[in-house]
């Protein structure tokens, strides 16, 4: 990549933070959704284990 691409015709300090923030939002969305699902799975597994120990 040449330097004029990164320079963005003088608008680099507006364009690049926007792109970076967009990427951050996308990554956050995916990461937080995965964490949410993992937590739900853990909680469900714990519930199943408790139910099993009570049944015994």
């Amino acid at each position, binding site marked *: 990549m040449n330097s004029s*691409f990164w320079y*963005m*015709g*003088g*608008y680099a300090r*507006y*364009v690049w*933070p*926007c*792109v970076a*923030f*967009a990427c951050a*939002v*996308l990554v*956050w*969305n*995916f990461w*937080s*959704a*995965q964490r*949410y*699902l993992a*937590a*739900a*799975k853990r*909680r*469900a*597994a714990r*519930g*199943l284990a408790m139910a099993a120990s009570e049944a015994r």
Partner: protein
Amino acid sequence: MWTWFYKLASPPYVYGVAAALMPWFLGFAAIAIGYGLIGGLVFAPPDYQQGDAFRIIYVHVPSAWMSEFVYTTMAVAGAIALIWRIKVGFAVAGASAPIGASFTLLALVTGSMWGKPMWGTYWAWDPRLTSELILLFLYVGVMSLRSAFEDPARGDRAAALLAIVGAVNIPIIHYSVVWWNSLHQAATVAKLGKPSIEGSMLWPLLSMFVGFMLFHGAVLCLRLQGEVLNRERQSAWVREAINS
């Protein structure tokens, strides 16, 4: 037709479909967003008026569109859940809220970053940005209301009703903000978007739209699985779903 509808209402079916679809959504989203970013940032020519600053629309316009699309999804899912007592609808509504709020925030931040070089200020009370800000408040209200109840089922229904009331109000809010702006803003403000679009500019933008939609689909699938699990902890199918 109706059997398909009933299937969609069944939590284990939804859980399975969401798990199966997620990687596909994510893969195609990566392709579409990747092409859109490269095409928009590298290959599209600079706009004749706005120069390279117009490239912000490649992230701003899709996220603004998504913020409204996701709110509509949330309100429609809530309405379906309230009217036909389909619990999966609440799960979809609950999964949508944080995604939509994050897209709204993205649209606001990129909009004001675009405003600085164009208007000379980060915030000019442009009608679209102001409506977007109010939309963010609506999202926050729905999310807070959902979490405010100790009984999650009650929170679900209350949040769904609020989302519907908000959806009815969104056009009113938008047009009143436009009216207010036309009354108070003497200076002509350049409108965001609508640069003279030509093919090499348009295709990456459309690709970003598709990519954001697909990405939203992927995240929704993940969150939806979580929401369904949280609601169905006692059901028999959960054991198989977890162990698989």
